[in-house]
């Protein structure tokens, strides 16, 4: 895989930025952090909004992060953007992706490895979220990128991730950056990142 230039946005409360950076390192990509208050001025091949609890999930997940200079200056349509978990929530709150993430159907925090339907294959990725229940009236089904095999959180159409090809924006609740290493017994995250690289 060639050296992509990746910007990883860090918000107050983000906690997956180092795992995301490490995944990029593993893939041989050049990555750097972009602070929430900085406008995105450099040219990246991929910008990642990683997982975590930006602004403590105050008001609602991603609700305040959407107002940050980094998010407001995202180069829509010019650079591939990937939102993972809290990143997905932020992209939906920003209306950059359709729909919204609400409380999981059982109001529990789901923390487990689960099976995901992705690219005609069943892969295993970790989940760690409280508001992962994706809801969208009139979803364009061609945008569905991945679905839950067991739909633990009650998402519409079991949607785990969506892809707006026209604007090059992907949002997904599972954590591919936590499924990269043989030592952890999970490597299917590599398939997600390889897919993204092929789309760039």
């Amino acid at each position, binding site marked *: 895989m060639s050296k992509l230039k990746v910007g990883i946005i860090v918000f107050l409360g983000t906690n997956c930025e180092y795992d995301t950076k490490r995944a990029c390192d593993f893939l041989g990509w050049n990555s750097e952090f972009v602070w929430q208050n900085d406008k995105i001025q450099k040219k990246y091949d991929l910008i990642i909004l990683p997982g975590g609890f930006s602004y403590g999930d105050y*008001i609602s997940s991603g609700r305040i992060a959407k107002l940050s200079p980094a998010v407001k200056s995202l180069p829509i349509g010019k650079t591939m953007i990937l939102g993972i978990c809290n990143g997905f929530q932020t992209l939906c709150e920003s209306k950059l992706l359709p729909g*919204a993430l*609400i409380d999981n159907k059982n109001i529990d925090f789901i923390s487990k490895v689960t099976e995901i339907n992705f690219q005609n294959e069943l892969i295993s990725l970790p989940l760690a979220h409280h508001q992962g229940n994706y*809801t969208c009236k009139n979803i364009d089904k061609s945008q569905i990128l991945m679905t839950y095999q067991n739909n633990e959180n*009650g998402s519409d159409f079991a949607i785990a991730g969506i892809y707006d090809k026209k604007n090059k924006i992907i949002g997904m609740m599972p954590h591919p950056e936590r499924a990269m290493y043989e030592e952890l017994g999970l490597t299917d995250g590599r398939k997600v990142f390889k897919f993204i690289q092929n789309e760039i």
Partner: protein
Amino acid sequence: MKKFCGKIIVKMKPDVKDIKGEALKQAVKSVVELHDLQCAVGNWYQISFCAKNQVEALKFIDKIAQDILSNEVIETYEIKSLEEIDE
């Protein structure tokens, strides 16, 4: 400039499942038997600020409610009150 205080309630839209409301309903049922019980859970916000007049204040509070306090995809908001208060 005058000082105003706005109170806003944000609730889930009727066609979006209010999961917390359902949980509250189960909790209430476990404590007291009530006929035709319905529960809704939302958020209440109080925001004070200075504005030229009531019209401007209403514009500001409406913008805050729309842009930050609620997500029109899943929530509705209601400005319960907007009063001029002492500084």
